[in-house]
Each structure stands twice: as structure tokens, then as C-alpha cells.
């Protein structure tokens, strides 16, 4: 594998890791506040559709982005209503949201565009264009660093940079601000937050809202950045992979970055090479497809370090003496 191919694979890794990273950080906010969310998939899917549909109808990718975020946040609100207000089962609520998104997106797509559950392909203006960073052209000839800068770091859409900036931002919010302190507390011991005179419900809704926002970004990137339009079930399990990455990352922002890059790399390799021939042993493409899931199971099994979730995760808060 030569240097340029490597760069191309890594470049593709960055693109594929971006939606994972955004969704993973979304889950991080939610689960750190004690709300499990297996509905990341559905929220991304809804956002992908509404972003693409709005962009197709208005020609503005930014309006698309807003619509995507709004739709994702509506689903977040449902999840909040079910799991916070009515203290329902968070897993079941997440499952319902995933199906709701899967059904509604196709239903509305068919109603609006009549193209078998997809949106029209997005023209320029309806998509996020790649940004060339300053000096990319100037630095390109420099050996090693030049191509890395020009090919790998430069030339992504704005949402990719946003996603990567979200990592330090998330870390800072969680560990350096009052909001972060309270958010982490409400995921560990909501009763401590409650008796300290801070609203558990308010904090958890805020966390679920941020989760919706980030899932919205992830979905919009899928449909208007990574690809040019929405197709049925286009998230293809990315929400679950993000969940896996979150567990892998032990609910920490910087680890989340590495976990998502790893899963992104797996996807990039699977995309570029079909059956991989390792000197006689052929690894079938299906194995590469399944690898992120297999890896997740291995991680969950605790063979690669034990992941301890937030203590109050998944449990609705009921006042108790």
C-alpha cells in the first residue's frame, strides 16, 4: 500500500467517522445524564431525511441543516417525554423512535417526492461543499506533511470540522463548567442533584436536547455532506455503531474520538476493498461488514477493559427518602 492510498483510506476514515463521532457525542451527553439512548439511529435517520428534503425543496443546505436538527430534536423530545416525564423504559422508547423514524421518513418521502422513499439528488447549494483550508495548495508539494495537510486535513465539509471541534468542546463543558458538573452528577446520583435544589428533569431534558442537536448534525452530514440526498434506511446501523463506540470510549470525549476513528477506519477499509486476500486466506466482505459489530460484542464482553456506565443510567428518577 503506497502513501497516497493510505492517505485516501485515512481521508475516507475521517469522512465516515464524522457521523459516528457526532452521534457518539450525542449519546455521551444523554447517557452521562443517565438517559440511555438507543434511538440515535432513528434521530440521525430523521435528520438525514428532513435535511435532504428541505435542501432539495429550498436549495439551501443551511435550511436543510436546521430542518434536520429540528426533526431530530422532536424525536429527542418524545424520548424525553417517555423516559423523563413519564418514567418509561428508555430502551423501549429508543426502539420505538427508531421505528418511527424508519417508517415516517419513507412515508413522507413517498408523499413529497414519489421516488420510492428517497429524495431527489442534491445539486450544489443543496450540499455542504468541501472547504479548502488556507495554504493547502502552497503546502501540498512539501513531502509527507504537504499531502497530509492538503489531502487529509484540508478538503472536508464544515460539519467534519465541527464534529472534531465538538470533542474538546464536550470535554470542556463536561469537566470545566457548572452545567457539566451537574450533568455528570445527574447521571451518577440524581437524588444528590435534586436535594441540592437543582431540577433533575430540567438537566435531563437539556442533555437529551443536546443529544438531539448533535444527532441532527450527524444525520444532516450523512445526507447533505457525505452523500447527495436521502435514501431509505441510509443510516444503516451507524447509530448502533456510535453506541458501541460510546461504550468502547467509556463515556469519555477523547476516547470517543479514537473509537469513532477506529470504526470509521473499518468502514473505510470495507468500502475500498471487497474481499481482502491475506496471502491465501480470503477475508470475505461480509466479515468486514460485520466487524464493527463483532468488535463491539468483544468490547462489551469486557475482554478489552471493563466499561462502567453512569451509575443512574437507564433508571428513571423517582424521589425516595
Amino acid at each position, binding site marked *: 500500500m503506497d502513501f497516497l492510498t493510505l492517505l485516501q483510506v485515512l481521508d475516507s476514515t475521517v469522512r465516515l467517522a464524522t457521523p459516528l463521532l457526532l452521534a457518539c457525542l450525542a449519546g455521551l451527553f444523554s447517557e452521562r445524564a443517565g438517559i440511555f439512548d*438507543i434511538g440515535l439511529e432513528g434521530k440521525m435517520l430523521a435528520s438525514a431525511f428532513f435535511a435532504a428534503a428541505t435542501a432539495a425543496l429550498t436549495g439551501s443546505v443551511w435550511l436543510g441543516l436546521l430542518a434536520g436538527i429540528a426533526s431530530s430534536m422532536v424525536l429527542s423530545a*418524545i424520548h424525553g*417525554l*417517555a*423516559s423523563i416525564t*413519564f*418514567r*418509561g*423504559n*428508555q*430502551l*423501549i*422508547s429508543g*426502539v*420505538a*423512535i*427508531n*421505528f*418511527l423514524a*424508519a*417508517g*415516517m421518513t*419513507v*412515508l*413522507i418521502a*413517498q*408523499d413529497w417526492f*414519489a421516488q420510492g*422513499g428517497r429524495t431527489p439528488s442534491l445539486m450544489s447549494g443543496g450540499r455542504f461543499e468541501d472547504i479548502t483550508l488556507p495554504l493547502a495548495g502552497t503546502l501540498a508539494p512539501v513531502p509527507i506533511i504537504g499531502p497530509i495537510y492538503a489531502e487529509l486535513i484540508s478538503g472536508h465539509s464544515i460539519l467534519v470540522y465541527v464534529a472534531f471541534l465538538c470533542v474538546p468542546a464536550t470535554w470542556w463543558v463536561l469537566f470545566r463548567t457548572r452545567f457539566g458538573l451537574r450533568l455528570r452528577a445527574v447521571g451518577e446520583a440524581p437524588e444528590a442533584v435534586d436535594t441540592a435544589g437543582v431540577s433533575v428533569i430540567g438537566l435531563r431534558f437539556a442533555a437529551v436536547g443536546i443529544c438531539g442537536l448533535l444527532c441532527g448534525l450527524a444525520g444532516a452530514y450523512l445526507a447533505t455532506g457525505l452523500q447527495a440526498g436521502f435514501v431509505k434506511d441510509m443510516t444503516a*446501523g451507524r447509530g*448502533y455503531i456510535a*453506541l*458501541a463506540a460510546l*461504550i468502547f470510549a467509556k463515556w469519555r470525549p477523547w476516547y470517543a474520538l479514537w473509537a469513532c476513528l477506529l470504526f470509521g477506519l473499518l468502514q473505510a477499509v470495507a468500502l475500498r476493498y471487497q474481499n481482502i486476500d491475506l496471502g491465501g486466506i480470503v477475508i*470475505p466482505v*461480509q*466479515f468486514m*461488514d*460485520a466487524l464493527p*459489530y*463483532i468488535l*463491539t*460484542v468483544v468490547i*462489551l*464482553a*469486557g475482554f478489552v477493559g471493563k466499561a462502567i456506565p453512569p451509575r443512574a443510567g437507564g433508571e428513571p428518577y423517582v424521589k425516595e427518602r
Partner: protein
Amino acid sequence: MDRMPNWADAVLVPLISLLLAAILSAGVILAIGESPVDAFSLMVEGALMRSAGWGYTLYYATNFIFTGLAVSVAFHARLFNIGGEGQAMLGGLGVALVCLYIPWPHWSLAIVAGAVGAALFGALWALVPAYLQAKRGSHIVITTIMFNFIAAALLNYVLVNLLRPVGAMDPATARFPDAVHLPTFQDMFSTAATPLFRGAPANVSFFLALLACGLVWLLIWRTRLGYEIRAFGHSDSAARYAGISPVRITVVTMLISGGLAGMMAVNTTMGEAERLVMNATEGAGFIGIAVALMGRNHPIGVLLAAILFGFLYQGGAELALWTNIPRELIVVIQALVILFTGALDNMVRMPLERAFLAGRKRRA
């Protein structure tokens, strides 16, 4: 005292939830410019007014009984098995191997062996998540989701690379021999004078599903194992105290659950397609969640909910055929049912409990 009488808990709450889901679904149909009344009558017409419609409704219901029972058995042990889809896929593989590689003299033997094969493969696919949950504390919801994806990849590989007949294009096995053809309702109930269930896929597996309902009822409420499963589901610490092994219960319950999910393949693979195709499950594994929630994890409830979803499925297909409403409407309804009967249960329950409490106070 309990806040509500048992009948309200078992019947009233799911009915109100269902009503809410129905109202919202009607709203969705309105929003896409169709008439909910027309849509509903079309669904009833297509699914219930002709024997062939029933033939489809009950065919789908058979699938949902198996997957619904699978989810509810696991629920009794407070295990959320989202892996019915993958377990049913593997169940299909079990059925296919049994039908393709063993020459059966008669369908009655084949269905027993097919059911065993399906249950075995389905159970096997539930074993790893069960073991990891029991021994390593890996969250079974996540692992079973992952196993759905792994199952799809595995089945894809097996069908494309191993079981596909030479020269065939689509990823599917060869057709099963005629000897394993299961009698359909048409075969069983149709006479020359009164043709019934014409062309409908409902088959003898439906009775297998009914049998499964009865056996699950006995298991859960009349056996020691069922007593232990429910005890473990209510309180794992108490189960430990009583000498009930959490590992054993988790694994055994998931094996039963996976086996039931797998047995759905007898209906789809032996009874209908008569060969194993990709995506034979068509999301039935997930519908099992809605069915179990609606049926309150009771076999009779599961049976009724499964027939309801069978009706929705068949009716939905009719809608897709005659109107502009795509089949995904069913996915939306399914989502709403899961939402209202599962996650938003308290929204329905709390006002009802207050009403009953107020009523009791007034009488007192």
C-alpha cells in the same frame, strides 16, 4: 391495596394505548392526503372480508406469535431480547439445512425436524448474548442488536458463497423437495365446491404457533422453571437468595426465547417460500416487541396482538397496492404501539390509577 383492579391493568391500559396509536396513525394518513376511513375499510376488506385475506392475516400472525412469545418469555426474566430478527434468520438456516440435506418421507416428520432445527439455530444465536449477559454483564440489548447485524452478514455469506445453487443469481438456497411441502389452509380446508384461502400462504405452522402459546403458558405459570424465571425477573437479588442461579435462568430463558424466534422460520421458509431467501424475516423479529408489549407478555394477549398485527400487515399490503400509502405505514403504527404500550405506559396508567383511587375513595 393495589391501585387498580387486575382487569384494568390487563385490558383497559393496552386498549387505551392502542386507541391512542390508532388516532395518531389516522392523523398520519390524513397528513399524507388520504382518508383514514377509506384506508381502514380497505384494510378490513383486504384482510378480513375474504378467506384469502384471512389466509394472509393468519400467515403473518403466525410469525408474530412466535416472535411475540420470544420477546415475552425474555421479558418475564426482565431480559429485553431485541435479537428476534437475527435469531429468526438463523432459524431459517436451520430449517433449510434440515429440509435440503435430509430426505424426508412425509411433511409431518419434516415439520417436527424443521421446528427442532429452527429452534436449535435460533437458540444458538441467542446463546452468546445470553452467556455474555450472565457471565460478563454485557448489556443484552446491545449485544442482541449487534447479533442481528452479524446474523445478516453471516446469512448473506452462507447464501452467496455456500448454499446458492450453481448458476443461480439471487442469494437463496435451492427449492426444498416436494415432500416437505407443508399443507396450506387451502390444502386443508378448501373443497371443490367451496374454495377457501385461495393462494394464501397460511399453513399448518399456525397450529404449531397455537401449540407454542399453550406450552409457553404452562411453562411460565405452572412449572418450577417458569416460577424461577418470573422470580428472577422481579428481583435478581431475591432469586440469588432462593438459590436460583442467575446464570442458569438468563441462559435458559434466552435459549427458549431464541428458539421461539427461530421457529418462526418454519412458517416463512418451509410453509411459504419453500427455500431460504435473504430477508425472509421482514422485520417480524421486531414486531414481536410490539406484540409482546401489547399482549402484556401473556400468551393469550400475544395471540390477539399477533392477529391484530397480522391484520395490519395484510391490510397495509392492500393499501400499498391500491393507494398511495406505502407499506412503511405499518412500521409507523408498530412504532406508535411500542411507544404507547411500552415507553409511555405511565402516561396512560397514571390518570387511570388516579381515577380508580378517586372512585374507591368515594365509595369508601
